[in-house]
């Protein structure tokens, strides 16, 4: 059975290559900072299970310190100029889309064909991780397609990958680190404290008020914790289940489903959902780190209102 470990080894090797190429990049004045940062990421992927918990913690501290002292620069691997790119786009035509479109095609093959396959009574892919394994496979195949079809230099995936990685910079690791913070919050019982605050201090004597507390609570709590999964058990145990479902007789499925989606409205408005809200501005090289959140806030607020209305109508028929 192919497990996530294979993907981690691949990721580790790719980041190790980024580190080595960074160290050799004399055009980046902070090249050793980049090399150290991507090197630590590579170490985490390759040996994270063997470092021990405290070792991994020290590794995290190292990443935060390199980023915190401004140790990351931006590498400048040799590449094609904008004019050359336009000329290449003319010459290749639609072919230039092939690698990017190979990604979803191979992903779908992975999920629809490889995932159900069994070899010697064992599933070929770890069923819980089939998407990520398929995505890694798709990345490898698509890279091959790009190299052959677009006749790119053999080292270009690593050099161009490093360019994009340096553009995103430390923000690339923020989602993973925030997920880890969520675990520490859970350990210290932060969720329970907030849940108690909400249920003790807010009025919920009418159905409308209880719906507002539950939906706004899901959104607000999600903004603080960075994802709706942490908010759902707390708010549903505190408000959804005892008040909306038991006292007011709401349909459990509709209450929970729309409650979770209210949490997603919060996800659109918080920098703590870094992979959705902070990584894209970095990828798109935007000056304003919060530009994507700002574009999302009006939609999120209107949709939150819509969710409360939907719950009022649909959960209590």
């Amino acid at each position, binding site marked *: 059975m192919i497990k996530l470990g294979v993907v981690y080894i691949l990721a580790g090797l790719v980041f190790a290559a980024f580190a080595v190429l960074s160290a050799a990049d004399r055009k980046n004045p902070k090249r050793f900072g980049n090399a150290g940062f991507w090197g630590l990421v590579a170490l985490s992927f390759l040996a994270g299970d063997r470092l021990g918990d405290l070792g991994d913690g020290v590794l995290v501290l190292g990443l935060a310190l390199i980023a915190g002292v401004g140790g990351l620069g931006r590498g400048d691997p040799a590449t094609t100029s904008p004019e050359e790119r336009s000329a290449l786009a003319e010459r290749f035509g639609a072919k230039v889309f092939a690698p990017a479109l190979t990604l979803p095609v191979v992903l779908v093959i992975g999920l629809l064909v490889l995932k159900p396959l069994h070899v010697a009574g064992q599933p070929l892919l770890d069923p819980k*991780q089939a998407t990520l394994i398929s995505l890694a496979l798709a*990345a490898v195949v698509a890279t091959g397609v790009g190299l052959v079809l*677009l006749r790119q230099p053999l080292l270009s995936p690593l050099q161009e990958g490093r360019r994009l990685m340096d553009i995103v910079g430390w923000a690339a690791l923020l989602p993973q680190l925030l997920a880890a913070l969520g675990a520490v919050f859970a350990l210290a019982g932060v969720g329970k404290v907030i849940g108690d605050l909400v249920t003790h201090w807010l009025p919920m004597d009418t159905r409308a008020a209880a719906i507002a507390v539950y939906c706004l609570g899901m959104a607000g709590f999600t903004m603080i914790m960075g994802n709706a999964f942490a908010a*759902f058990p707390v708010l549903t145990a505190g408000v959804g289940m005892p008040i909306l479902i038991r006292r007011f007789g709401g349909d459990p499925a509709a209450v*929970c489903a729309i409650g979770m989606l209210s949490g997603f409205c919060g996800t659109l408005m918080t920098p703590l959902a870094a992979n959705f809200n902070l990584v894209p501005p970095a990828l798109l090289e935007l000056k304003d780190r919060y530009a994507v959140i700002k574009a999302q806030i009006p939609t999120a607020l209107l949709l939150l209102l819509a969710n409360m209305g939907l719950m009022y109508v649909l959960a209590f028929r």
Partner: protein
Amino acid sequence: MLTLLGVAVVVLGFAAGFNPLLVVVAAALVTGWTAGIPPLQVLAALGKAFNDNRFVSAALLVLPVIGVAERAGLQERARMLIGRFRRLSFAPLLIGYMVFRQVTAAIGLTSIAGQAQSIRPMVAPMAEAAAEKDAGALDPEARERIRAWAAATDNIALFFSEDVFIAVGSILLMVGFLAQSGLNLDPLQLSVWAIPTALAALLIHGTRLVLLQRRLKRRGGAGG
């Protein structure tokens, strides 16, 4: 109450513009301190959780192939393609992308597109090229805004349609939670209630896209 000090560190640290990686580590240490957990134990807990969550960063593996395609002119080609469809303007383009993303996510194909693999190399350049047809040459501010909206459209489409699929994480979480409370529901019963919100998201965000296109057009007309 003191337990919430870590949350305050996150909020203030982000607001003050400190490096977020440092802020998160500091918040973890403060949270542990308020809960009476020794610093080394907090660091170990953080390290363990970081290691357990490596799958979050593994998706960065798509960057090399995107870089290769960009080196060969992918962004430029995406722009040219939009130029050829004379009548395709900004709002219909992003609404069309949103529908595509919602429909595919609703049948479970959430990773078929994404910020690194579709928005940066293709959708954002296409959106810029489409907006230029209405508004003429874009100033840097308008360009930033259009790129940000392309990214936002992907997020919104994904969030409010993935729950229509029965095997997605949040649906399974709800089924598990309700089962613990003695309510046994089928995933399908939960996922049908995601459909109204998915439609509301399309309606609300689609309207906002149309309004943004009008604003861009007005500004383009005034500025030449």
